[in-house]
């Protein structure tokens, strides 16, 4: 089951660049939450702060509190433990190129020392079914490389890989921006199904996409969160002028 995310006074810097300023919000459990905003507004940085992936960049620095369920991720746990609970799907599909489809899905478990073969088979099957890829790949699981799939299939493979470690939260950083419309709609259908089991945070440039998949939407601008409301309210009756300008296409 998914858990809620509580963010208090989150600030982030890359070197001297203050990329996130005083972010406060509560992301509800088992819902999809969309983050929109122009390029460089800090929304990708924000999701990276939710599983401490920003720490892979040595000049990044963060202050504030992030709670995933009961866990304060900056004081209670190590990054590797958090990332097992908070899965991530990236903008460009990034399957492990030298691994088979099966090994790609099993990678997170195998590399963390999980070796029970029978239950591994079950987890791989369940993850691929959850990511709506099973029917397309079930005959070539160990024969084909993850890199031999189409872009849309690769992205669903990456979702399956993230699901296999059984996270509570799934972060998606523009998961469909490199995909064609058909693959995009498959990913969106998937998000709709997955939110019964996971808390989903999706960064998107595509406002229609936010409107289609998310119950709540946050609008970021210049490192600040301007507005965080139900998606319906953001798109029909935003309370901030800047949100309205962005949504009606006056900038960005």
């Amino acid at each position: 089951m998914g858990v809620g995310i509580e963010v208090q006074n989150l600030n982030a810097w890359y070197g001297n660049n203050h990329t996130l300023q005083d972010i406060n919000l509560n992301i509800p459990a088992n819902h999809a939450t969309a983050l929109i905003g122009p390029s460089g507004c800090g929304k990708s940085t924000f999701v990276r702060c939710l599983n401490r992936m920003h720490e892979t960049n040595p000049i990044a620095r963060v202050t504030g509190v992030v709670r995933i369920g009961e866990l304060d991720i900056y004081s209670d746990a190590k990054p590797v433990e958090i990332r097992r609970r908070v899965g991530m799907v990236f903008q460009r599909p990034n399957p492990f190129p030298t691994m088979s489809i099966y090994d790609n899905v099993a990678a997170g478990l195998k590399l963390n020392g999980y070796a029970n073969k029978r239950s591994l088979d079950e987890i791989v099957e369940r993850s691929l079914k959850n990511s709506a890829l099973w029917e397309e790949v079930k005959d070539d699981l160990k024969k084909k490389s993850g890199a031999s799939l189409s872009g849309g299939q690769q992205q669903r493979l990456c979702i399956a890989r993230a699901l296999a470690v059984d996270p509570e939260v799934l972060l998606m950083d523009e998961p469909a921006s490199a995909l064609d419309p058909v693959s995009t709609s498959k990913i969106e259908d998937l998000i709709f199904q997955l939110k019964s089991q996971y808390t989903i945070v999706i960064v998107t440039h595509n406002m229609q996409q936010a409107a289609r998949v998310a119950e709540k939407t946050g609008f970021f601008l210049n490192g600040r969160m301007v507005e965080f409301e139900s998606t319906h309210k953001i798109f029909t009756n935003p309370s901030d002028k800047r949100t309205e300008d962005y949504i009606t296409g006056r900038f960005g």
Partner: protein
Amino acid sequence: MSTGQFQLRSRLRGATDVAVTTLAILATVVVVTPLVAIFAYLLVKGAASLNVDFFTHVPKPPGELGGGMANAILGSGILLVLASAIGIPIGIGGGIFLAEFGRGSKLANAVRFTADVLNGVPSIVMGVAVYGLVVSQQHSFIPFSGHFSAFSGGVALGIMMIPTVCRTTEEMLLMVPHAVREAALGLGVPNWRSVLSITVRTASPGIITGCMLAFARVAGETAPLIFTALGNQFWSTSLNEPIAALPLQIWVYALSPYDDWHRLAWAGALVLIVLIVLAVSLVRFVTSRGVLKGTS
């Protein structure tokens, strides 16, 4: 633009295309010619002297006809296994440090610089250095030291392999897309595990190529062995004794005054090249079987 101008331009474009293509083909021919020529020349000169004896007998004393280089073939094999056992793990380990754990640090820059300098050290100097470090040490903790030995030859060749293996490993690891590392870290895989199981694995075809390059290079080295392995006219498989090696034997035979030895030297050169090609192909075959088809 008038029709005449257009036709002229398109004809010019066609001519340029033909010219550039021709140049490229010519360059390819020039690149391939020496290899083909050397191989053909060796075949002509050496193939006639190849017989079963060559692979099964040790050299005969001067003046007696016949004999072979069985001990030198085995000796080269032993030296190269030893050299690879020293050079490949150290080289790959150094490359992983340069590309992953020490990236940007002062130590990494120093290591990289040292490796590049080491790569430029003439092979005869490497032989003299190992002579000083191992062969001439009478009372030393170093095993097999104090005299000429197969061990010291393997050490000299192994050290020569390190910089090539190290730098190609680094280059290949740096070519692995950042997205692949992120994917592993995003799954909650610790960094060291991600480096060893994902990054190195993704770069492994290139790393293997680097190892093969280093292997092929030292397989033909003569100079470092003169002061270390020394050469041997008899059977020896001991790491503690001087050992024969194909390049050494070729060198000795080619400089000798006997026609029969000259013929054997040609045959030895042919065998050396064929064995290198075989070894490289074998490694490629074995390591490529695990890699899935359709991988880009």
